[in-house]
């Protein structure tokens, strides 16, 4: 009885963080499908989302739920600008775009260090206390994180499935030139995709801000997880990103029961190498 409860509890804790990493990975994958570039600075947009939550809810005293929306909009707008000024013009040179994203990573981290300082900052949870049931325990804030992330994923799905701009976005991802011939403003759509992708990362950062601390280096962990997730699921595939996130969540929550933390981390990276070598389209498509 003890062992299954232990594993279930580990799964529950893992799921509450993994679902946020899925948000980050979805944004990364969306950007890749439209732009063909891998945005190494994606974790820094996540970090900016965390700081938006900190300054709005802790310093300015705004309602935490409102800061989630604000983080999505502010970081999304920043992403839109970055696409228009930097990645859009570099779209035809993937290598330059990739190196520029590495530069953006350094730049955003340095700006955050200069503006916000290196001291970890805590964001108070809007949902204190814990919930119990079936012999399991979970803090209410983690429960909220899970529901909010699921809602965001559902929103993204509806936008892409039924929204007019979502349709345009899928068309550009499929065939850029044809989409342009059909009268779609492909430049605007690229900016929009980048903005939505970064906005998701910003919301994810704001969501996890009460769970972890906020610091200029907080983006390093989720970006690596997001890479692993989109490689497991297939780059550019959104259902794949969700599936990849679930697999990684399973590995990370159950793995430490049997192996050391370093070995679990090693397994994630090894999964990247093995999958890229033998199945670069990911496990989702066959």
């Amino acid at each position, binding site marked *: 009885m003890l062992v299954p409860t232990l594993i279930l509890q580990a799964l529950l804790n893992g799921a509450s963080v993994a679902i946020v990493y899925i948000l980050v990975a979805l944004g990364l994958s969306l950007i890749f499908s439209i732009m063909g570039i891998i945005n190494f600075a994606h974790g820094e947009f996540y970090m900016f989302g965390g700081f938006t939550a900190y300054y709005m809810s802790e310093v300015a005293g705004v309602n935490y739920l409102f800061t989630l929306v604000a983080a999505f909009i502010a970081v999304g707008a920043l992403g839109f600008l970055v696409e228009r000024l930097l990645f859009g013009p570099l779209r035809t040179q993937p290598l330059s775009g990739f*190196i520029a994203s590495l530069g*953006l990573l*350094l*730049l955003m*981290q340095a700006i955050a*260090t200069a503006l916000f300082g290196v001291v970890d900052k805590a964001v108070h949870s809007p949902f204190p206390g814990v919930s119990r049931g079936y012999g399991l325990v979970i803090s209410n804030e983690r429960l909220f994180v899970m529901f909010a992330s699921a809602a965001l994923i559902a929103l993204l799905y509806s936008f892409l499935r039924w929204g007019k701009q979502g349709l345009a976005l899928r068309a550009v991802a499929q065939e850029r030139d044809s989409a342009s011939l059909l009268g779609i403003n492909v430049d605007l759509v690229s900016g929009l995709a980048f903005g939505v992708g970064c906005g998701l990362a910003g919301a994810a950062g704001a969501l996890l801000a009460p769970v972890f601390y906020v610091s200029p280096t907080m983006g390093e962990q989720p970006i*690596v997880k997001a890479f692993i997730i989109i490689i497991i699921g297939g780059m550019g595939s959104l259902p794949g990103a969700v599936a990849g996130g679930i697999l990684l969540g399973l590995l990370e929550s159950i793995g430490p029961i049997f192996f050391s933390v*370093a070995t679990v981390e090693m397994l994630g*990276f090894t999964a990247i190498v093995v999958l890229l*070598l033998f199945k670069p389209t990911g496990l989702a498509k066959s």
Partner: protein
Amino acid sequence: VSWTNDARSITAFVLLAVVAATLPFATRDLYIIGVATTILQNLLLAMSLRLVMNLGLLNLAHISLMGIGAYVSAALAMQLGMSFWLTLPIAASVAALMALALGGLTLQLHGPYFFLITFALLSITQLFFHSYFENIFGGATGLIGVPRPNPIGFGTFKIQMVDKVSLYYLIFAFWIVATAVLIRLEYSRLGMQCAAIKQSETVARAIGIHSIRCKLLILTLSGFIAGVAGVFFAHSRGVINATDFGVDPMLRLLVFVVVGGVGNIWGPVVGTIGLSVIFEFLRDLHFLETLVYGAVLIAVMRLFPAGVIGTFQWASAIGNRWQAAKHDAA
């Protein structure tokens, strides 16, 4: 045209070598000697990284090859008490072999897949030295007390590799040999095949160039040079840590290379020396370093994708054309 390029290249090499060789006579300031030593060590890394980037292979695990050289040499010296002059070729060869293995594994991948996999390999190597075989590689604390290079010489004539000046001359000697090899390579059969691959891999393969073989040879050579830099790094500093071979130092190296431009053998030299000297003058503004590195990477990619040297060549080509047009008109 190739003769003038040839002459220019060799003139630049000789000039730089003379300046570097006479530096310890010009100044007795050990701080400057230390900075120059770091610059020469970074030159080995930047020039070998340019070699692979010139073929379109952004190898983010380049710094790991340096790390392998450093850790293997330090472990051999500390565990088995081997001489520096024995661990140097062994460790550099191990790094070269790992580069060869990396190429053999990954060269089938293109574009973003290649740099993602090298990023994963960078993380794996760092994690390996950080968390495994702690009794050999020192774990999270790293290795402390890596011995200095053994003295070299015959009989009573011995050069002790202890003070900063002799270490400077040691890395200077490595740099001279490596640069001579790299210059010679540019004009060799392999170098020309690489130039063809760079222009169009499809055409190069169609005329019978074995592109995978060329890339493997270049990767192996770059791994060996990075390994030598790593061995020097370990034994000259005496302390190594897995974070010395992580993402941050890799990005710095990348800045050195792309600022100068990958198209020319002297690009990384201009980038490395130029940026290192600028940062020495801005030493008090140390906290701005990361900011400037990031901004420079973005600006170079956006405005001068060919780097400083490439932009200069492009400008002079425009100038020549303009001169010629004026001549025709007259």
